[in-house]
């Protein structure tokens, strides 16, 4: 297909350079979408091969075909020289192909240990060896250097921690080929580092890795080669040493981006919201103000209490102490309803659990907060309903066949755009964005940041939560650092460096959290 993809010489006898998996004209059509146009690509044994591309480019689709989650439309997959049908996940696993999917697909009501051994339980005479399994799982987890308990219910862990468990699970199954689909989207830097260590170790043990990410610096840090997908087509493959950021972005979106972090500084206006010594579940004694025209960034590790803090502001949880002032007046926010009436809007952290009605149309999801506005008394104005939905779809370049497609049929990043997009037409004064760009491609990120500026220029204030330091660092006028439920430091725009902020977020010493969850 491309020159670089074909320059692989016939299999050398040397183990590492050998081709382990080859795609020949691999193609996938969904009803209404040609997600993957015939792709030719070869993966070498024990390489880390990154795949990058815009939201909806077909990355996850490729993974689903390789792991037997979805049937392919046409084409061949050659595994160690022999054609493989890959019709079921089981078949893929039997060959040694495993994946850590973009959305965690584990059983949230079972324990960590039960999840690790799901389908391969240790049982003697039909009796589950539960204790042995917990012990074994704990050993694997400790061995990988993850600081997590094996006996707790998976759903009690944060999404990032669940992602680590998913990774740990994939390593225990005689894996030869392991795929990570945006594994760091929900991880903090510290967890990401643990994961990178794991990935490098696996490579050292001869495992081939596909690594999908929207974060260029990770690609350059980890990968040996990188392939770019655009609109379901393989644009090219490069050795990592022979390419750079700008070239990859250009290949991905077919244009160049001068500047991702678009930051305009406005003179802050009146105070919109003030929290005074606010405490609640997961956070303690937090005080801060948000003024019109400014972005207040909240940085910290996942689980530091940032999400709990904002959901309490938003009336989802009860505060246990302290006061909330809105435009100078003390208010009781007892429900989301109260918050929205005051003029707040929240784009939550987890798009699957909190952000989207997955089995409903894109248009309905986008309009959900504004139905009151676009209906006269009883009836919805269907012209307005369509217009509003189409406006946001165009605004954020949401890749969907129509506004009537189900949200579940969109790629991860495009789903994320709905979570944000639904509030843009709402006319709120204070926007709370909790990890707004998780899984969003670089072009759209730039677009979203530009929209932030637009909101600010109209006199809105923004609370931006992000576990991705560059994002809050480049965008926040005021940056608060959270650690274990407390606000531990506050900085102005660029008044501290990454190093300092990271140290504050991580704490000087890591105490062992001995089953603290």
């Amino acid at each position, binding site marked *: 297909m491309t020159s670089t993809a074909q320059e692989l010489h016939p299999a050398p006898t040397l183990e590492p350079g050998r081709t382990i998996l080859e795609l020949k004209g691999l193609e996938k059509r969904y009803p209404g979408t040609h997600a993957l146009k015939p792709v030719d690509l070869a993966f070498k044994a024990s390489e880390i091969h990154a795949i990058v591309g815009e939201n909806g480019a077909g990355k996850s689709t490729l993974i689903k075909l390789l792991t037997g989650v979805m049937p392919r439309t046409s084409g061949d997959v050659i595994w160690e020289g022999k054609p493989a049908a890959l019709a079921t996940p089981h078949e893929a696993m039997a060959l040694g192909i495993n994946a850590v999917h973009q959305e965690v697909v584990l059983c949230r009501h079972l324990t960590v240990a039960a999840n690790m051994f799901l389908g391969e339980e240790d049982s003697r005479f039909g009796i589950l060896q539960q204790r042995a399994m917990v012990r074994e799982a704990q050993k694997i987890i400790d061995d990988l250097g993850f600081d997590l308990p094996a006996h707790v219910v998976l759903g009690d862990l944060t999404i990032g921690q669940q992602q680590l468990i998913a990774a740990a699970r994939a390593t225990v199954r005689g894996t030869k080929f392991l795929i990570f689909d945006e594994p760091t989207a929900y991880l903090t830097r510290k967890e990401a580092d643990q994961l990178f260590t794991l990935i490098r170790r696996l490579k050292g043990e001869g495992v081939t890795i596909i690594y999908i990410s929207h974060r260029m610096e990770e690609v350059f840090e980890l990968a040996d080669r990188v392939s770019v997908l655009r609109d379901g087509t393989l644009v090219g493959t490069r050795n990592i040493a022979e390419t750079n950021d700008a070239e990859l972005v250009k290949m991905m979106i077919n244009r160049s981006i001068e500047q991702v972090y678009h930051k305009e500084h406005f003179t802050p206006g009146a105070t919109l919201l003030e929290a005074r010594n606010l405490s609640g579940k997961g956070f303690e004694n937090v005080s801060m103000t948000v003024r019109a025209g400014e972005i207040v960034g909240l940085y910290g590790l996942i689980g530091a209490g940032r999400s709990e803090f904002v959901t309490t502001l938003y009336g989802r949880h009860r505060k246990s102490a302290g006061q909330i002032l809105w435009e100078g007046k003390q208010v009781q926010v007892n429900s989301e309803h109260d918050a929205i009436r005051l003029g707040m809007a929240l784009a939550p952290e987890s798009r699957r659990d909190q952000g989207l009605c997955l*089995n409903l149309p894109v248009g309905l999801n986008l309009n959900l907060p504004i*139905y009151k506005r676009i209906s006269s008394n009883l009836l919805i104005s269907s012209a307005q309903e369509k217009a509003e939905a189409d406006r946001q779809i165009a605004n954020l370049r949401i890749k969907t066949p129509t506004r009537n497609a189900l949200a579940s049929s969109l790629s991860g990043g495009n789903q994320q755009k709905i979570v944000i997009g639904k509030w843009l037409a709402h006319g709120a004064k204070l926007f709370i964005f909790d990890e707004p760009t998780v899984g969003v491609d670089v072009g759209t990120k730039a677009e979203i940041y530009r929209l932030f500026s637009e909101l600010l220029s109209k006199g809105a204030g923004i609370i931006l939560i992000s576990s991705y330091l560059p994002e809050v660092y480049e965008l926040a006028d005021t940056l608060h650092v959270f650690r274990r439920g407390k606000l531990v430091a506050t900085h102005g725009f660029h008044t501290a460096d990454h190093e300092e902020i990271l140290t504050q977020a991580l704490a000087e010493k890591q105490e062992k959290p001995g089953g603290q969850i």
Partner: protein
Amino acid sequence: MSTEAIAAERPKRNYNALFGLTLLALLVLLWVILSVATPSFASANNISNLLRQGSMIAILAVGQTFVIITGGIDLSVGAVVGFATVIVAMLINAGVPIFLAILITLLVGVAIGLFHGFGIVKMGLPPFIITLATLTSLRGIGLLMTNGNSISINNDAFQLFSRSSFLGVPNLFWMVILVGIPAYIFLHHSRWGRYLFSVGSNAEASRLSGVNVQRTIYMAYTLSGLCAAFVGVLLASRIGIGNPTQAEGWELQAIASSVIGGTSLFGAVGSVHGPLLGAFILATINNGANLLNVNAFWQRIITGVLIIVIVYFDGLRRRGK
């Protein structure tokens, strides 16, 4: 947008209508077959009879559908129907004006629905449990109130209503239209309808988007209770008695009609025309089987098989195969 995208729009948009048309075709097909198979089927008398039979389940199925769309279930509707016949019969026999008696009965239905909402929202009970509890206790309360006897209604005007026709169509069928049209507008063209779907799909996401989830749930069960009480009034008018053991098993027929009409028991999928057609398909099968002297046991088996077949094909099409 590419041409592909435009081509994809058609089937999606018309999916609901298309499924409705398929059901309608099935209904017409049944009618044609039965008209050929048995001469008495197409008689004016039998058709009115069939419409009357189907109408009451159809109205129940509409209320039931609202509840199922939110991801719930209302097992109490059959018992509410029976209970409502008792209330309306007692009130009329006590000399309360018909209009007022009906209004009070409907309010009783609303109250039962609110109680369900309360149990689910405030007490955190699963819908299955709270409505199951109402099912058995309402039958009990009705039996206590009547000492286990039927109450015959001594008011001819009340009974005449369900026996007469308007423009050649039985009044009971007009009642389906009276309920169906507002229900359609409510579900598909009002924001409350959208909220039913969104709550059924993801209550947490709806809540965070400013949807009042609790009120939406109250609303669904209240509407279901209201529909059931209304059917109770119609049934009392039709059979001329109040009896708490009437309408045994109608909740299951209502659920079956709804499901045949394309409602998903997982919530967030459903329409108004679907359950209406579903109810008349079931009524036609029962009616036809009677005329053909098919053993009543077989009728039940056929209904069961039909539910499986229709829902299976509906599921296949939804997955786009």
